[in-house]
């Protein structure tokens, strides 16, 4: 028996509990990937219901169907091109007006639609009561109340979805604008009727009047005359209203959304402020907000480093315990060297980094995100981030960078535009991750003292700010500004957090695993064929003459591309001692660590950059950092030598 297939898309604003509904619907049958050619996450899942195999697509959380962000473009292209059988619009009952603004746009796109009115419990706590029947009548769309986090209404939602599809989902009726606009929409729709469009004609007409860049471009390619007509009509509307045409169209749409919201909801005054409200006030408080934030993040890093370090050591010991077994199996010959040193050590590296550090890291991150705290942190750090040409949201990937640059790079997706993503990505790769912290503390911290280690962090921050500012000036495009919803605080949904963590971990392993093993093998071969020494000699004009380091550091820097902490491990191996004082002068230690901190992103980070920004930009970022390091390292060596601050 073959089951009938259905395609349902979830669409809605950010922070409305869409991913929780997605998880409730699809359970374990999910697949997270990217939209083709776009660095926007695509979550798909399947479920079986009443004889149907239903594919569910979780579209990104967006506020509009314009072309401001990649997410918006992806969403509208999906609805237009893939024509899902039904779109479930997840609406936050506690912010009805803004959510309906998006609903109205879905209706204009003429896609079959039902509404999941979610978080009705939170709305009730805020004193908001919504007349579901009336809302459905006003929109001409079925409305199902849900409390996704508790699993309430999910079954009914699915039932309604199938029922609507079976009945032959009626396309929702469009809203009406003011007569002077309607008339021009009509004229433009008529003109558009002459050309073949993939979008509905009325929607295209509205988007043209809204000044949508992408639609304008598409229409220009098809018929420049129609664009001219649109421009004239837009000017007429501007003259009537005294506001730019896009403003008029958006205002009217919001007016309709507001009118519906006022008619269907009843807002009762609340007796006392909610706990979430108080928490909000404290966490963005002028004075208290900052120490709270610092304490939260210090606490998190402490937990991750302590717990991670402890688990990492245990796992390391456990896995290296298999080395004698390998020796017995293969004997002490090059084959064992390749298999163990090349492959197994890469596997161990992945396991000992990924499990102990990345898992808690993501878990905590998602708890912070889902609870709403990250938005507060972005609010508090906006001023600071502007100093490097970014805005508050960039604080999140930046903070991630101190743990590991790979998730940080991927985390740059939080930024809206491609330009902001690239800027944040560049800055993030300069942040000393946990591996680099090992070197900074292990070498400079323990041999020169903590103040020198802190000096390195300070130098790093200065460089990050200067380069961020410079990149901001060099890259063309609009300046950035924070425009961010501050969602209400809420309890995170545990299962969703776990799943998000799992998918991130999978993504991390997919990126880092092959590369770490491959580069491990290459380096092992170089070692076997005695290529390391010639390479070190080849690098010596830079390492020895310019940076004033011993020749063997060239080898360690090559290994460091694999994993930054290997620079120290290999250095100890080559020196035959961990008492680095015997081989390096204090000045050399400082310069070496400075170089390790900056010289190039590790392979896994480069891979993440390629995935997010493409080959070219990843190569430019890497090259820039090499040049930067050579300049800064050489300068530091000479300045410190002249000042005679460190023994050389």
């Amino acid at each position, binding site marked *: 028996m073959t089951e009938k297939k259905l395609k349902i898309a979830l669409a809605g604003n950010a922070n409305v509990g869409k991913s929780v509904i997605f998880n409730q619907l699809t359970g374990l049958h999910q697949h997270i990937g990217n939209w083709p050619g776009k660095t926007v996450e695509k979550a798909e899942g399947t479920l079986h219901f009443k004889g149907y195999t239903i594919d569910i697509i979780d579209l990104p959380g967006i*506020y*509009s169907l*314009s072309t*401001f962000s990649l997410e918006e473009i992806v969403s509208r292209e999906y609805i237009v091109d893939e024509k899902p059988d039904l779109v479930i619009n997840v609406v936050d009952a*506690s*912010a*009805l*007006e*803004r959510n309906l*603004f998006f609903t109205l746009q879905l209706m204009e796109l003429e896609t079959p639609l039902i509404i999941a009115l979610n978080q009705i419990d939170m709305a009730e706590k805020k004193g908001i009561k919504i007349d579901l029947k009336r809302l459905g009548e006003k929109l001409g769309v079925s409305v199902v109340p849900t409390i996704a986090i508790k699993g309430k209404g999910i079954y009914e939602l699915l039932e309604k979805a199938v029922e609507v599809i079976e009945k032959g989902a009626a396309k929702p009726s469009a809203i009406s604008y003011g007569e002077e606009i309607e008339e021009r929409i009509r004229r433009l729709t008529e003109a558009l009727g002459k050309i073949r469009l993939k979008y509905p004609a009325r929607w295209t007409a509205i988007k043209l*009047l809204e*000044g949508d*860049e992408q639609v*304008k471009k598409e229409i220009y390619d098809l018929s420049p005359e129609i664009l001219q007509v*649109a*421009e004239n009509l*837009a*000017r007429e509307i*501007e003259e009537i209203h005294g*506001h*730019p*045409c*896009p*403003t008029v169209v*958006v*205002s009217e749409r*919001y007016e309709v959304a*507001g009118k519906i*919201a006022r008619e269907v909801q009843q807002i009762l005054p609340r007796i006392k402020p909610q706990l979430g409200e108080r928490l*909000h006030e404290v966490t*963005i408080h*002028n004075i208290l907000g900052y120490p709270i934030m610092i304490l939260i993040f210090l606490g998190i890093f402490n937990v991750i480093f302590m717990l991670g370090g402890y688990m990492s050591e245990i796992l390391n010991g456990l896995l290296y315990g298999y080395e004698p077994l390998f020796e017995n199996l293969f004997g002490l010959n090059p084959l064992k060297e390749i298999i163990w040193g090349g492959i197994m050590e890469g596997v161990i590296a992945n396991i000992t980094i990924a499990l102990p550090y990345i898992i808690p890291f993501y878990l905590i991150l998602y708890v912070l995100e889902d609870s709403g705290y990250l*938005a507060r942190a*972005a*609010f*508090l750090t*906006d*001023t600071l981030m*502007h100093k490097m040409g970014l*805005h*508050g949201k960039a604080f999140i990937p930046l903070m991630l960078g101190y743990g590991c640059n790979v998730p940080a790079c991927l985390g740059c997706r939080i930024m*809206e*535009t491609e330009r902001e993503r690239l800027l944040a990505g560049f800055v993030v790769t300069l942040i000393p991750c946990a591996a680099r912290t090992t070197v900074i503390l292990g070498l400079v911290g323990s041999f020169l003292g903590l103040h020198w280690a802190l000096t390195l962090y300070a130098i790093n921050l200065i460089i990050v700010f200067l380069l961020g500012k410079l990149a901001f000036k060099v890259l063309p495009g*609009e*300046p*950035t*500004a*924070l*425009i*961010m*919803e*501050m*969602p209400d605080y809420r309890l995170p949904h545990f299962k969703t957090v776990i799943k998000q963590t799992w998918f991130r971990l999978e993504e991390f392993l997919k990126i880092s695993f092959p590369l770490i093993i491959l580069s491990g093998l290459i380096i092992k071969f170089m070692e076997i064929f005695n290529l390391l020494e010639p390479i070190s000699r080849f690098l010596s004009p830079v390492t020895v003459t310019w940076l004033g380091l011993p020749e063997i550091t060239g080898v360690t820097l090559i290994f460091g591309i694999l994993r930054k902490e290997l620079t120290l491990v290999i250095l100890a191996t080559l020196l035959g001692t961990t008492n680095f004082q015997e081989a390096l002068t204090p000045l050399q230690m400082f310069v070496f660590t400075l170089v390790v901190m900056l010289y190039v992103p590790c392979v896994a980070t480069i891979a993440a950059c390629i995935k997010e920004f493409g080959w070219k930009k990843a190569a430019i970022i890497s090259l820039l950092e090499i040049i930067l390091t050579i300049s800064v390292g050489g300068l530091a060596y000479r300045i410190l030598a002249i000042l005679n601050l460190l023994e050389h």
Partner: protein
Amino acid sequence: MLTLEVVEMELPLTALREGESGVITSIRASFGWGKGGGYGLQKRLMDMGLTPGTKITVVKSAPFHGPIEINVRGYRLAIGRGMAEKILVEVQK
């Protein structure tokens, strides 16, 4: 005789103190059909509900030239100060 005078002033959003409300009159930036520059962010603000005639209340104005949190259409929105300076509001005093 004391007459109650209603003075309406157009001010940038940043001039409002915490707890004060105003009605948006315009967003001061090049923004219109086909003008290109500055389109994205202006459109973004509108999509988030900041259209002319909308009443907004400043909830929080962060120190050190920080962002501004407002209440608009029943939800909280944070806006960078640079952007907030371009939003003109009418205040009734």
